[in-house]
Each structure stands twice: as C-alpha cells, then as structure tokens.
C-alpha cells in the first residue's frame, strides 16, 4: 500500500480523450491519448481521484461534481491537473465527464484493469463479479511525484476522498 511520503508509481499507462467542444463531436472521431505519469508528475501538483465506475452513484453525497464546481479553488492552491480515473474505457469516462458538465478543466482517464489502484493497494471490495475489477473510491495528492495526501473511503458516502478534504490538505 502506498502511503504519504512514498513516490507515486509512474509505470501504469493511463489514457484519456481530451475534451472538445460539443459541436465537434459530430465532426470528429476521438481516440484516447496517454496521460504519462512519468512526464506529468515531476515538478507539478496532481490530484488523482478514483471512482469505482463512470456514472456510479454515491449514496448520500456528490463526489466528482464537487471537484468540477471547485476547480478554481484547486488551481488557486497550485494544482496543475485533477485527474478522475475509473476502470471504464476512456470513451465511457469522457462521456461521463461531459454528462457531469465538465469541459477541459478535469481529465477523465482510464485506469486499465485497475492497474494503478492495484499498485496503490486500493481495490474496491464487495463488487458484483460481473462488474470486473474496480478501484476503490479515493483521492491522492501528488506533489513533484511524492504522495502528500491519501484519502480512501471505507464505507459509502464521500468524506476523505472528497473535494473539501483534498482542498484542506493542499
């Protein structure tokens, strides 16, 4: 399990589809491009937020929408990228981002077969077998490649993995 103070792993190949304005959805076909952790982490502050899946509900609280709402506060605190990951395809994740009303301020990326969540030590338990392997709901702050905050939800609801908790830790 990765702890605060550890180096964040950079060997998992996350991919994402950069946001393009609505009207070019009909005019263009998207393909995922890499979000290369070995290039995006050094010298930068990146917040990685994991959700079990695109469009999955949280029971009593909002998770990702609050990050979208408060993105300016994150930028003011020196965050370069907020990256939301799930094990769903980059296409599903990109569509989820659009459905939530995000534009290009947040990156919606695919964690292939939960490789990153596995390496961090945070897979979701109690998942129906048909859903496949899933990452847990958590948020990590990585400053210059080193973990400075780690919040994993242990029950339903959003507490330590939420935008407010991360903002406080920044």
């Amino acid at each position, binding site marked *: 399990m990765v702890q605060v103070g550890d180096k964040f792993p950079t060997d998992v190949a996350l991919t994402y*589809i*950069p946001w*393009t304005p609505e*009207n*070019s959805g009909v005019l*263009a*076909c*998207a*393909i995922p*491009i890499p979000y290369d952790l070995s290039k995006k982490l050094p010298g930068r502050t990146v917040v990685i937020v994991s959700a079990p899946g695109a469009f999955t509900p949280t029971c009593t609280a909002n998770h990702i929408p609050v990050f979208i709402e408060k993105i300016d506060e994150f930028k003011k605190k020196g965050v370069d990228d907020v990256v939301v990951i799930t094990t769903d395809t980059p296409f599903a994740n990109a569509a989820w981002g659009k459905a939530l009303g995000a534009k290009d301020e947040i990156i919606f990326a695919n964690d292939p077969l939960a490789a990153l969540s596995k390496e961090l030590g945070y897979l979701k338990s109690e998942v129906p077998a048909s859903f496949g392997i899933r990452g847990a709901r958590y948020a990590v702050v990585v400053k210059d490649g080193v973990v400075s905050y780690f919040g994993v939800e242990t029950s339903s609801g959003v507490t330590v993995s939420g935008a407010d908790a991360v903002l406080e830790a920044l």
Partner: protein
Amino acid sequence: MVQEINSAEEFDKAIASGVVLVDFFATWCGPCKMIAPVLDKFSKEYEQVTFYKVDVDKLSEVAARFEISAMPTFLFFQNGEVVSKVTGANAAAIKQTITKLI
C-alpha cells in the same frame, strides 16, 4: 490532390518547407470520409499549399508526436513548424486558415 505519407522520414521531408497542410485521418472515421472530397477540391484551388494525409493507424508514432486525439485533425506547417490547427471536419475553418496563410 492530397498525397498520402507512408513513413516518418517521408513526413519530416514533406513538412520541411513551404506551407503544408496535413490531414490526420482514420479509415474507420466517418467525418474523415465526409471531408475528403472537400480537401481534394481545396488542393486544386490553393496551389500555394501542399496537401498531405496521414493514416493515424499506419503512422501511429507520427500521430502520437502531435498528440492527435480526434480525427480528422488538420495541422498547418510553415517551414517545418506547426502554425495552425483545425480539429474536426470543418470545411469553413480549413478554408479560412488556408486563406490566412497564403
């Protein structure tokens, strides 16, 4: 006409000088097929620009070099440097960009 580029070396030579337009397309992409005849027409109309196309599946390293994430993407080069970009099958934007560069 729009000439297809078949290797990275060919690509580097093609963009090296003058005003060059490169159409990054995929064979399975509808909008790319839609815009192809328009591009062909432009290539005959605007002789000051050299028109090329790159199949992103065949030349994936070249596509990755420019972080092509949507097809078609049109990159405009002037003496080897990217000076403009149009994403999507937007004939009007392509025409506008061409006329600005020549």
